[in-house]
């Protein structure tokens, strides 16, 4: 080995060492950041320290004596969290990458992808894969074990109502959203100011389910007979000569009133996707149909619908998944009382209120089983498209 080569070798080693230290420093900084964020007092301490650092002794004393404004702490916490979360992660990637660049080329090629993947893989592992396996385990070991938990899910009278309601939600909610969405998409295609008209139907999608629940509670609200009705539905109903109805307690129709809220939210989604699909229908196909003398209705059902079948399935599946897990609407509107229980709401109560972790896990597993076919189809499509190979 010539002296030149040796020198190069040494400088490479030194660089590797340097970046190695920097990489460890990045890890340490992330760790410190997490420790600080875990302890609200540490943020106050940090503010005091910063004030002293820039020479604002008076400010630091004032904080030590009188405490600090809650809002200011929160602001500092957010800024700090973004600095640690984004800065720390970038620092980790940059130093890790430099470390890899300094290593021999074979190792470089093999290591780099893992550096890019690892943080994401760690998060997925901790927050999705581990809990997934653990939930399945808990559902067969906690509380009364497998037999107890699953017989509760399948045979308990309250659960049977929940299962029935989930089925109602899935069928009526999905069909309602898709049909109205499709209808509106087809109609709005033929009027002026199409985008403007769509905005109104799309808007509920931006609102939280809790917000939507409050909106609809107001629509359904009830006053005793004789008092002026302030809820829209009861106002219309009594004006038509009916007695006021407590809609949310009217078993079994109350389920329908809750499902209506979901349709109100999801129709916008169906409408936008299906509208885009309608615009993708080949012109020749439609023109050929028109020349053959098909009416617009025939054209729609025989030509247009089969062409947008893919989009229809996508929309229906997506809404199906969303409705399967419906929780907020029921939780806020009725809390599952008056026979409006659904699986996800019951799961929340078993977990959070009654601390029956085994039952809660078994309920979650039921939801998982319902999405497994969709999961399989998605992964299969992935293979067919050759993605990820």
């Amino acid at each position, binding site marked *: 080995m010539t002296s030149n080569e040796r020198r190069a070798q040494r400088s490479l080693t030194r660089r590797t060492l340097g970046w190695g230290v920097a990489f460890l420093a990045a890890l340490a900084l992330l760790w410190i950041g997490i420790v600080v964020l875990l302890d609200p007092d540490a943020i106050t301490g940090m503010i005091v320290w910063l004030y002293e650092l820039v020479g604002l002794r008076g400010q630091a004393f004032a904080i030590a004596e009188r405490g600090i404004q809650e809002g200011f702490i929160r602001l500092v916490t*957010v800024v700090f969290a973004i600095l640690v979360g984004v800065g720390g992660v970038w620092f980790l990637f940059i130093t890790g990458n430099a470390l890899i660049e300094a290593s021999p080329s074979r190792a470089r090629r093999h290591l780099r992808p893992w550096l890019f993947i690892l943080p994401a893989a760690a998060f997925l592992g901790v927050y999705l894969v581990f809990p997934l396996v653990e939930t399945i385990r808990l559902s067969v070991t906690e509380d009364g074990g497998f037999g107890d938990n699953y017989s509760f899910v399948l045979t308990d009278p309250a659960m049977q109502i929940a299962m029935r309601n989930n089925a109602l939600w899935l069928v009526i909610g999905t069909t309602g959203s898709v049909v109205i969405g499709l209808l509106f998409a087809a109609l709005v295609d033929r009027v002026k100011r*199409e985008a403007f008209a769509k905005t109104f139907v799309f808007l509920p999608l931006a609102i*939280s389910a809790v917000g939507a629940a409050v909106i609809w509670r107001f629509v359904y609200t009830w006053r005793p007979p004789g008092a002026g009705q302030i809820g*829209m539905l009861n106002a219309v109903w009594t004006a038509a000569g009916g007695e006021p109805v407590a809609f949310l307690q009217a078993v079994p129709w109350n389920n329908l009133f809750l499902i209506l809220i979901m349709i109100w939210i999801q129709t916008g989604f169906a409408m936008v996707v299906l509208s885009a699909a309608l615009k993708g*229908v080949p012109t020749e196909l439609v023109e050929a149909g028109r020349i053959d003398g098909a009416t617009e209705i025939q054209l729609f059902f025989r030509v247009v619908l089969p062409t947008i079948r893919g989009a229809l399935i996508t929309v229906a599946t*997506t809404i199906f998944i969303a409705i399967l897990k419906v929780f907020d609407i029921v939780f806020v509107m009725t809390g599952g009382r008056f026979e409006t229980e659904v699986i996800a709401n019951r799961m929340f109560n078993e*977990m959070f209120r009654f601390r029956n972790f085994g039952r809660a896990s078994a309920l979650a597993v039921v939801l998982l089983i319902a999405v497994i076919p969709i999961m399989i189809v998605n992964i299969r499509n992935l293979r067919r498209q050759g*993605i990820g190979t």
Partner: protein
Amino acid sequence: MTAVVDPGTAISLDTTDPAMRRRSPFGRFTHNPVVRISVFVIAFFWTLPTAGILISSFREPNDIRSSGWWEVFVHPFETGQWTLENYGNVLSSAGMGDAFINSLVVTIPATVIPITIAAFAAYAFAWLRFPGKSLLFAIVVGLLVVPIQMTLVPLLRLYGDLGLTGNFLGIWLAHTGFGLPLAIYLLYNYISTLPHEIIESAAVDGASPFTTFTRLVLPLSFPALAAFAIFQFLWVWNDLLVALVFLGTGSRTAILTAQLNELVGSRGEDWHLLTSGAFVSMVVPLVVFFALQRYFVRGLLAGSVKG
């Protein structure tokens, strides 16, 4: 069929978007009154409930209690019936002001942090070779539709052991974890369609994969990054379940959705608070909706399958 719409697809409500001005071959413009009235009726009924709470939130509490909100149209210009007091009350005494700040505190880091992590992973999946890649990616796609309920019990226990419950850090990390499959998938779809020539010519010019990523891929992926950011922002902002489980309802940490739910439980007949409170919780999503409509629609569509 994939249950996720490609973020690059030009689906939008934006009137300035040329693709939106185009009619479908099926839809010819019509003067048919039935069509126009139907469109109007559906749009009208879809807006009515929201209009009800918006108008009520500006009325005197006594008026809300005694007459329907539609009665303001009898004499809309009688200024005495309008008030801003409900908003003052709901923001201060009903705790929605603090909750608003908490929502921002939760949402901003929970949106920003996953983007970096997901972008690196998506780039590796799209352009680097490593063993086990297709299996890992299949796992990511599988996790896309896993109901969030599947994760709650173990995480609740884990958080209890670590002392993370009721702490903002806990919910940032949780939302990062829950948002990642979608983020990776969405960004992958976009990054993998970038032209080969661009990526390869960068390599020929001696750029390392890291430089290619930061200088070329990230800036080019802006539409997908924005779409995901908006989707994640709204998802976290509007979420109730994760917030209840990991933050609870204490006044120091309750976010808007949790606080509004609390109000429904404790002051369910105080419609002046509920209507104004609901509108406080909706105002940010509505601003995002109107200001960033194009990215908003893409993000929402692309991400609507999230667990």
